[in-house]
């Protein structure tokens, strides 16, 4: 395989596979947060704040994949 093609293929795979885990994780987390808000609307403020912290931490994983893809395309 020529190196240019391998680079692009690797970048696509890195982004695509890297987005799977965080996607599932974010879905579960936001679903659970909505569930708990629906059960106890009075704690919605706290739940929302902690959900955003969790979103930030989880989302970072997908963004590492994005950075790896960028490195593969433009730097490597």
């Amino acid at each position, binding site marked *: 395989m020529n190196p240019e093609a391998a680079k692009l293929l690797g970048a696509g795979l890195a982004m695509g596979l890297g987005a799977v885990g965080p996607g599932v994780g974010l879905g579960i987390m936001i679903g659970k947060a909505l569930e708990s808000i629906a059960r106890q609307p009075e704690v919605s*403020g*706290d739940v929302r*704040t902690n959900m*955003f*912290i969790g*979103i*930030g*931490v989880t*989302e*970072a994983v997908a*963004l*590492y994949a*994005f*950075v790896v893809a*960028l490195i593969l395309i*433009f730097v490597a």
Partner: protein
Amino acid sequence: MKHPKRWIIGFLLIGGLVILALLPGGEKLEFEVAGEFEREVLIPLPTIGPFDLSVTKTVAYLWVAVAVIVVLTILISRTLKVHPGRFQYAMEALYELSRDGIVGSVMKSGKATWFPYVGGVFLFILVNNIVGLIPLPFGEHHQPSFYAPTANLNVTLMLALFTFVFTHYAGIRKNGALRYVRAWAPAGAPPVLKQIIWAIHAVSEIFRLISLSVRLFANMVAGHAILAVFFAMALIFQSYLVAVALQGASVLIYLFEIFVAVIQAFIFAILSAVYIGGALDQDH
């Protein structure tokens, strides 16, 4: 034929789309996404040591953002009214969000000490992200181009370094250096396990710095790259139909990017508050 008007409108729409699809497209243009993120030099200045002092697109955008913050805050604080106007109400909402929503909800002690930093970083990133969505004439040959200063790793790493330094400064000043560092491992654990936990915690402190800066950087780069691709798609496909369809789509993506800009500023500020609060009140 119950609704003749609707039929006429429908036929006109379909006919219009067919005509758009048949029209010959304009000139084909080469487009590189990476070109949007090049740092064009606006005012060339000499290099001193390892530092290039030239004013680039990033610096110009940072100046604009800082000017917006300074003008907004000074104007509004000079003309405070009991019945707030539109701008004062917006600033009060931001102040309240950073005081009660960010600092108040995650920090236990030292709220008054660290609110200015967390609130300041929130406002700075928010204004930078939003100014970055407005095309300003800082591109090549002073063409309008949009670029967020936070889509530059140097800027976000600097912001993350502030949080990193302040976290350890706060922890050491409150708990004392030795007690602060010792509390990184739980007191009850067996000795060998304790050392491993301590080492993992020490590494995680460095990774907080990386994740904090890369999160903001990658979010803004991804958002601007998607916007740039959507704007350029019409030139690549050379079709008016694609152009019309994508202008609608790019408006939606613009709205989503405004949402992302607010969320990322919020997440950066709240994580800064969490880290500083964690260093102040160590639970183990």
